[in-house]
């Protein structure tokens, strides 16, 4: 079960040099902009920008190929589902109908629908590279420090950093438990009936959860002994001061974000309509 999850890659690039705080702010601005806007012109510009940023980071495509395939597969399914459930969504949004050809009943193919689904897909292509880069180029403990810096309580930041720190451990526990149970003859595959599988799954969850509860006890006692939470503030070992590069990138992205919001909402609709 060699399943990969995304993680931090050490490398020296401009993107890696940016502080975690800068990357977090840019990531949040970027994904909210891409979430809010349906303006195709903006999405295309953002897409080109995200490709440039990706190039700058020196991350190779093959390093994230597995995740990319998953995303593409999901996008395909989502697009099919949107069409099956609502083949006239585009017509409803753009208020006109240019039929290319008709398939059956209300299932015809319109330019509007194609354009709408193109936009939905494009939104993913805009968000994904930046989000991936954020994960790949930010060290987990720096991530916690930057969460604290944007104003989230340090206790919550520590919780996030604990989660990231213990992911590999718990994944290893999970794998061990699952292999032990399979060696004992517990079947998790399709051959079992679904009710039986539900029960079998519990045989993994039970040890996993109870060992995690023990872990919670151990860690919280250790933290208690070190007087965690005594002061209102704390310092972070991996926090980095903001450099000139950070300030420039922050200013540019905030400016860009404001422009995007103005262009998107100036005519009262999130959609760019090329059909009028």
């Amino acid at each position, binding site marked *: 079960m060699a399943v990969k999850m995304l993680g931090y890659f050490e490398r020296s690039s401009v993107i890696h040099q940016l502080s975690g705080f800068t990357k977090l702010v840019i990531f949040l601005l970027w*994904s909210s902009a891409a979430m809010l806007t349906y303006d195709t012109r903006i999405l295309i510009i953002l897409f080109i920008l995200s490709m440039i940023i990706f190039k700058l980071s020196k991350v190779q495509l093959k390093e994230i190929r597995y995740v990319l395939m998953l995303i593409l597969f999901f996008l395909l399914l989502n697009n099919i589902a949107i069409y099956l459930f*609502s083949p006239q969504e585009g017509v409803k949004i753009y208020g006109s109908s240019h039929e290319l050809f008709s398939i059956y009943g209300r299932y015809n193919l319109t330019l509007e629908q194609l354009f709408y689904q193109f936009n939905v897909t494009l939104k*993913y292509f805009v968000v*994904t590279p930046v989000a991936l880069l954020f994960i790949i180029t930010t060290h987990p403990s720096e991530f916690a420090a930057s969460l604290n810096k944007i104003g989230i309580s340090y206790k919550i930041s520590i919780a*996030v950093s604990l*989660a990231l720190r*213990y992911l590999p451990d718990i994944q290893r526990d999970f794998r061990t438990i699952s292999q032990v149970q399979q060696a004992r003859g517990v079947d998790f595959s399709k051959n079992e009936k679904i009710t039986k599988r539900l029960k079998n799954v519990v045989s993994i969850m039970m040890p996993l*959860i109870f060992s995690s509860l023990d*872990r919670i006890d151990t*860690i919280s006692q250790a933290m208690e002994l070190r007087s965690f939470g005594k002061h209102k503030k704390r310092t972070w070992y991996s926090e980095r001061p903001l450099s000139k590069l950070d300030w420039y990138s922050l200013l540019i992205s905030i400016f860009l974000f404001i422009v995007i919001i103005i262009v998107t909402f100036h005519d009262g609709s999130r959609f760019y309509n090329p059909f009028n």
Partner: protein
Amino acid sequence: MKKSLSIKTIVAIGIGSAVYVILGRFLTIPTGIPNTNIETAIAFLAFIAVLFGPIAGGLIGLIGHALKDILMWGSIWWSWVFVSLFIGFAIGFYAYKVKLEDGVFGKKEIISFNLVQIIVQIIGWGVLAPTLDISIYAEPANKVFTQGLVAALTNIISVGVISTILLISYAKTQSKGSSLTKED
């Protein structure tokens, strides 16, 4: 944040989120209908929310689901992350109703817990998720409502079966609160 956020709660949020990610990533049961799985992560969320209360439950839902999304897909589906937060938070209030640490989780508790989880999940997946999907992502209404209802149904089954078993087993590991009486 409230001052009462104890060290144990903080650690529970961290470890709980990590367990949520692992379960969400590796342990789902396909139902046979394409793209619909029974999520064990939600069952875990309900369980841990009853153990540690609404704040821990809500934050585990938020952090766990957001991390899972970003580590799996590279982007976060905020509307559903918010629903996880809501479910963890709402079911967490049930923590005040039971005395798990006294080893009490009998028939009465099983019924009331399941009533709570069914109501919470119908509101969460059936109403909140689709509404947010439409307002944030402008997805077609009937698509997201179908998705929401399917998710509500599978997650109700998941929590109803798995969380209930987990809670009963957990209660058994705790010593009965009333097993000792004070001497005169």
